[in-house]
C-alpha cells in the first residue's frame, strides 16, 4: 500500500492535486471516497481516474438529464493505447503502470474540470463530456489528445512510445441508451484502429452495417481453411542479369464464395483479431513447401510472414516441421518479413533469424523504403535479401531521390552480401532503370502477375520465350 501511495505521489508532483475533479456534491464526494477503498468502487486505484462503474453511473445520469430536458447533450470518447502491450511485455508491468499514470495525467490536463475521465480497464480510457459537444471543438480536442499521448515518455530511464486511437459517439444523436452509446463509441474506435491508428472517428451509421458484415466474414473465415477456399498464387522473381526465373513469391488468396478473389489486405487484419493468423500461417507454410517440392532445386519459394507470426517463439519450429513434412531442403524456402518486425525490437527476432539461417532458410526484408527500417539495422541482422518497395520503383518521373535511395541500398547490400530485389517492375523502362541502379532481381507485371499453382508450367514457358525474344 505504501509503495502504491508513493508512486502516485511522484507521478503527480506538478499535476492536479485531486485525482478526480468531478465532484457534484459533498455527499457524493464522501460516498466516492468511501467506495474507493472497496474493489469495484468509484476510483481506479492505479491512475486515480474514475472507475468503469463510476463512468457508467455518470453516463446514466447524463442520459436521464437529456431525457428530462435539463441537459442538451453529451458525448462519449473511447480511447485505447496503440502498442501498450508491447511496453508491458518488454519493459515490465511497473513501467506499464507508470505509463498509464502519465497518460492519465496528460489526458486530464486537456479536459474540462467537469468532464469525467475514466479508465475502463487495461489500456482503455473513456471520457464523458460535461457539456453538449460542438463537433468542431471535439475534433480539435481529439486531435490534441492524440498528439499529446503519442509524445515521448521517459520512464525509469526508458524512452517509451505509445499512441492512441479514439472513437466518439454523441447523445442524443447516436443513441439515448448507455448501452447503445458505448457500443457506438466502440465501433467508431474500431474504425480508427482499422484505418491505421492514431486517428479519431465520429460514429457513422455505416459502421453498424460494417460490423455486421465483419461478423459474417469472420464466420466464413473460420471455415475457409476446411472448405479449401484459401489458395496460394505465385508470382515469378527474375534475375536481372540472366533473365531466368529464380523463384516465386507465394501470395495468399481467399476464393470467397460470394465476394470473389480476396487479397490478404481484405481479410488478414480480421484474421489477426480473431486469432487466426497462426493457423493460416501454418497452412501457408505447409502448402508452399509442398508446392516447391514439385519444382527444380534452383527455384526458391518465398512466403510472407506477419510480425505476429514471426515473433511467435514456435515460429522457427513450425518452419522446420513444414520443411520436413514436405521433404524440402531449407535453401528452397525464403521468409519475407516487413519492417515492422524490426520496429518492435522484440528479443525473439534475432533468435528466430539465426534459427532460420541454421536451417539454410533465407530471410528477406520486405517493402524496404516505406517506413522505419534504417540502414544500420540491415547491417546488424542477418538478412539475405532486401525487397525495395514498389512505391520507389513506380514513380513515373523516376524521382532522383528515390533512385539515390535505391542506389545506396544496392551499394550497401553489395558490401554486406545482401541481394537487392525490386518489386513492382511493370515496364521495360522500369527494368532498365533498376538494373542500372544495381538491383539483382525483380518481379512485377512486366513479367507476370501472380498465378494459381496449376499455371506455373505455362508461365515458365512464357518467360523462356520472352527471354529469347528480347535477347
Amino acid at each position: 500500500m505504501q509503495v502504491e501511495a508513493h508512486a502516485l505521489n511522484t507521478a503527480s508532483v506538478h499535476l492536479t492535486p485531486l485525482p478526480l475533479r468531478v465532484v457534484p456534491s459533498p455527499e457524493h464526494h464522501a460516498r466516492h471516497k468511501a467506495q474507493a477503498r472497496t474493489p469495484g468502487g468509484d476510483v481506479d486505484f492505479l491512475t486515480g481516474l474514475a472507475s468503469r462503474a463510476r463512468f457508467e453511473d455518470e453516463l446514466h445520469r447524463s442520459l436521464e438529464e437529456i431525457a428530462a430536458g435539463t441537459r442538451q447533450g453529451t458525448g462519449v470518447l473511447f480511447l485505447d493505447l496503440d502498442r501498450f502491450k508491447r511496453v508491458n511485455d518488454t519493459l515490465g508491468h511497473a513501467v506499464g503502470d507508470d505509463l498509464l499514470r502519465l497518460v492519465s495525467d496528460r489526458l486530464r490536463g486537456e479536459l474540462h474540470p467537469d468532464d469525467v475521465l475514466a479508465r475502463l480497464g487495461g489500456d482503455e480510457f473513456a471520457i464523458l463530456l460535461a457539456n453538449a459537444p460542438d463537433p468542431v471543438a471535439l475534433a480539435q480536442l481529439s486531435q490534441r489528445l492524440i498528439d499529446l499521448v503519442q509524445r515521448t515518455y521517459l520512464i525509469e530511464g526508458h524512452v517509451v512510445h505509445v499512441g492512441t486511437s479514439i472513437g466518439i459517439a454523441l447523445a442524443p444523436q447516436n443513441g439515448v441508451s448507455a448501452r447503445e452509446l458505448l457500443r457506438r463509441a466502440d465501433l467508431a474506435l474500431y474504425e480508427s484502429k482499422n484505418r491505421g491508428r492514431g486517428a479519431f472517428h465520429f460514429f457513422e451509421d455505416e459502421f453498424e452495417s460494417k460490423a455486421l458484415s465483419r461478423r459474417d466474414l469472420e464466420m466464413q473465415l473460420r471455415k475457409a481453411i476446411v472448405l479449401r477456399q484459401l489458395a496460394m498464387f505465385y508470382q515469378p522473381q527474375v534475375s536481372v542479369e540472366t533473365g531466368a526465373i529464380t523463384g516465386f513469391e507465394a501470395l495468399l488468396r481467399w476464393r470467397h464464395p460470394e465476394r470473389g478473389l480476396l487479397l490478404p489486405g481484405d481479410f488478414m487484419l480480421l484474421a489477426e483479431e480473431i486469432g487466426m493468423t497462426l493457423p493460416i500461417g501454418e497452412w501457408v507454410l505447409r502448402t508452399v513447401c509442398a508446392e516447391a517440392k514439385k519444382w527444380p532445386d534452383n527455384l526458391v519459394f518465398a512466403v510472407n510472414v506477419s510480425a505476429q507470426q514471426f515473433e511467435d517463439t514456435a515460429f522457427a519450429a513450425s518452419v522446420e516441421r513444414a520443411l520436413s513434412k514436405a521433404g524440402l531442403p531449407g535453401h528452397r524456402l525464403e521468409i519475407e518479413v516487413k519492417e515492422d518486425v524490426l520496429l518492435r525490437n522484440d528479443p525473439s527476432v534475432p533468435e528466430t533469424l539465426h534459427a532460420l539461417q541454421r536451417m539454410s532458410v533465407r530471410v528477406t526484408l520486405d517493402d524496404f523504403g516505406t517506413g522505419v527500417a534504417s540502414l544500420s539495422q540491415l547491417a546488424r541482422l542477418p538478412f539475405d535479401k532486401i525487397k525495395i518497395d514498389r512505391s520507389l520503383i513506380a514513380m513515373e518521373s523516376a524521382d532522383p531521390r528515390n533512385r539515390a535511395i535505391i542506389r545506396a541500398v544496392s551499394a550497401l547490400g553489395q558490401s554486406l552480401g545482401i541481394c537487392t530485389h525490386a518489386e513492382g517492375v511493370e515496364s521495360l523502362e522500369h527494368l532498365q532503370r533498376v538494373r542500372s541502379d544495381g538491383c539483382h532481381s525483380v518481379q512485377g507485371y512486366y513479367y507476370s502477375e501472380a498465378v494459381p499453382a496449376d499455371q506455373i508450367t505455362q508461365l515458365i514457358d512464357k518467360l523462356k520465350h520472352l527471354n529469347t525474344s528480347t535477347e
Partner: protein
Amino acid sequence: MANDLYRIVYCSRNLIDEHSTSTTHDAELESILNASRVNNRSVDVTGALLFNREYFAQVLEGPRTPVETTFERIQRDRRHGEVTVVENGFAGARDFPEWAMAHAAPASGQMEDGICATLQLALLQPSANGEDVLLLMKDLVIQD
C-alpha cells in the same frame, strides 16, 4: 540509481505562432527560460536551452526522477512538437553545473544555418546525432 546523475538531450520543433512578431516571440521564449529556471532550481536540475524560430534543443541533467518529471512537464507544452529524445543516460559529471537553465545563444546570425542543420539531422536520426547536439550547446554556452 534514481539519484545518480542523469542526462537527457532532446530536440523539438518550435510551434510558437509563426505569425507572431519577433518581440512577442522573444518574450514567449524569455518566459520559457525564466519558468524553467525557477522550476529547475528547486529540484537540482541544471541544463541549457537553445532555440530559434524553427527548433528547440534542451539539455536536462540532475537526479533521474526530477529530470524525468521535468521532461514530462515540458513534453505537455503545446508550444513545441515532434519532441525527439536524442540522448539519454547516466552521466559522469554535469555539463552545465552553474546553470539552472543556460541560454545557448548563437553569437552571430551566420551560425544560424549550421544550428538548423544540426537540429534537423538530430530530429531525423536521433540516435546518430545526439552527441553533436550536446557538443553544439556546450560550445554556445561557453562562448556566451
